[in-house]
């Protein structure tokens, strides 16, 4: 479904990603873990078409999308939920959701999608008229995911979704990710919360200094001694 081949990414003259190769199959949850500054968010930004210059290929269902502008990628089904939510804080929940359905295809079924999002995330239905900036961090994260779902994604890219969330919301969020997979959505998740992500993900990659250094099934990586020492503090 989503394939990354020999991807290098740069901020100016600084190379951040080195020959990254990965694959996310249809209906999979794939995790990407790594220490701070490993290049996880850069990879997500590159996949979403935001800012970085890059070499290599990003393919969605075999079709190259790496030359597309950021705003064109959601039309192809590749939608990013950015780190720190990046909601539009002065707009209501409903208005934020409205923005998610920008593409004509998504707009045509916006009402139906909205009902689906409300069914999946009832807190958004309850707070539909609330100003987004006045919600708690967990609710804002749900809204960020809801906004992304309004674009009718095929692949959902989640960048550090649990950052700054209370434990109750972390659990809710991973339950939500599992239910999104059950509905047929493909999810790629970047997380520092290694334990949670490896327990949830079908497969995962470990990024270190901009290079993929390990890959495997989530459960297998969870028991890997090297990973335990480096990231789980065991």
């Amino acid at each position, binding site marked *: 479904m989503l394939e990354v081949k020999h991807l290098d990414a740069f901020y100016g003259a600084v190379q951040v990603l080195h020959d990254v190769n990965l694959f996310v199959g249809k209906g999979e949850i794939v995790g990407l873990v790594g220490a701070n500054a490993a290049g996880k968010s850069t990879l997500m930004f590159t996949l979403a078409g*935001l800012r970085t210059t890059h070499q290599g290929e990003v393919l969605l269902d075999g079709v190259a999308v790496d030359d597309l502008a*950021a705003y064109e990628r959601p039309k192809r089904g590749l939608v990013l939920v950015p780190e720190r939510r*990046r909601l*539009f804080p002065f707009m209501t929940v409903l208005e934020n959701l409205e923005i998610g359905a920008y593409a004509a295809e998504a707009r045509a*079924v916006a009402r139906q999608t909205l009902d689906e999002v409300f069914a999946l995330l009832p807190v958004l239905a309850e707070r539909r008229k609330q100003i987004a900036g006045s919600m708690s961090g967990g609710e804002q994260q749900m809204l960020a995911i809801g906004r992304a779902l309004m674009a009718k994604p095929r692949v959902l890219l989640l960048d550090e979704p649990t950052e700054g969330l209370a434990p109750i919301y972390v659990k809710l969020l991973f339950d939500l990710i599992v239910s999104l997979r059950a509905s047929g959505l493909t999810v790629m998740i970047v997380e520092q919360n290694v334990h949670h992500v490896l327990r949830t993900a079908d497969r995962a990659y470990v990024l270190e200094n901009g290079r993929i250094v390990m890959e495997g099934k989530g459960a297998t990586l969870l028991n890997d001694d090297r990973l335990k020492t480096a990231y789980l503090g065991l």
Partner: protein
Amino acid sequence: MSAETIPSLSPRRMAWFPTRGRISWFEIALLLIACALVVSGMASSLQDVLLLSFLFGGLALAWNIAGGYAGLISFGHSAFFGVGAYASTILSTRYGITPWIGIWIGALIAAMFGAVLALICARLRGPFFILSTLAFAEVVRIGALNWSSLTGGAEGLSIMPAPSLIGMVFASKAAYAALMLFYLVAVFAITKGLEASRFGYYLFAIRDNEDAAGAAGVNPLLGRTAALALSAALTGIGGSLFAQYFLYLDPTYVISPELSFQFALLPAVGGLGTAIGPVLGSFLITPLSELLRSYLGSSAVGLHLVIYSFGLIVVMLYFPAGLAGALDKLTRRGRPR
């Protein structure tokens, strides 16, 4: 647009105080007062102040679409103003086309200028965009000064002061005041419609966080270009009305940095990114400026500018969100959140 509409876009009941996307009783009351002033038969000098307040209110609203809603802070809007003014004046004086038509042609040309500026410069950020708009207006001004065969060059252009409805020249200032008020109300209605529209949401999104807007699929360049073109078109209409009132175009005034700053200043004082803000800004600043100039301009040269500047500093210091922000804060005390 599809038949699918999200409930946020459906009509809502009227609010008491200015609220995004909704007409309020406060705004209705303001309109009624403005209508009463138009027909009140006040002194000629006060009618000047009144109609200029309406005109600059509309121009400030037009600027606010780009600067307040799309985040395109422009110091070059006098170029669009001048283009609109010159277009309708040239069409009427050279080709006998009534300004009632020329005004729309001027708006179209101004919109094209705005779209070109956006396509070239809207990728620039902050001060770089601001400087590019200043430079753009300078290019237009120099063009107007040097294309003498069309624009009259430094001598400018005059419109025959012969009152006629078809020529949009009126003997009565009340008629001009009514025309300017109509312009103000029209631009205000467009702004309100924009606030409640999907396009308005996209503009807010682009302004507030371009990356997030892009990640959600919103095309920032398209949004900015549309916003600047709309803003330019409405400014161009204001330019045409200005020409029809003053009946003379001086290129060093109609395309000048001072005028561009004035367009930006009024929304800044009144409240950027709000519909009522530019109107309040114009209703405060335009009379203040005109009255100070007329009462103090000749007796104590420069004093009116000192008082005017002091007033601006006070407003900026104590009302950083503008008069609209202060009004919102005041009225919010008694309202459920």
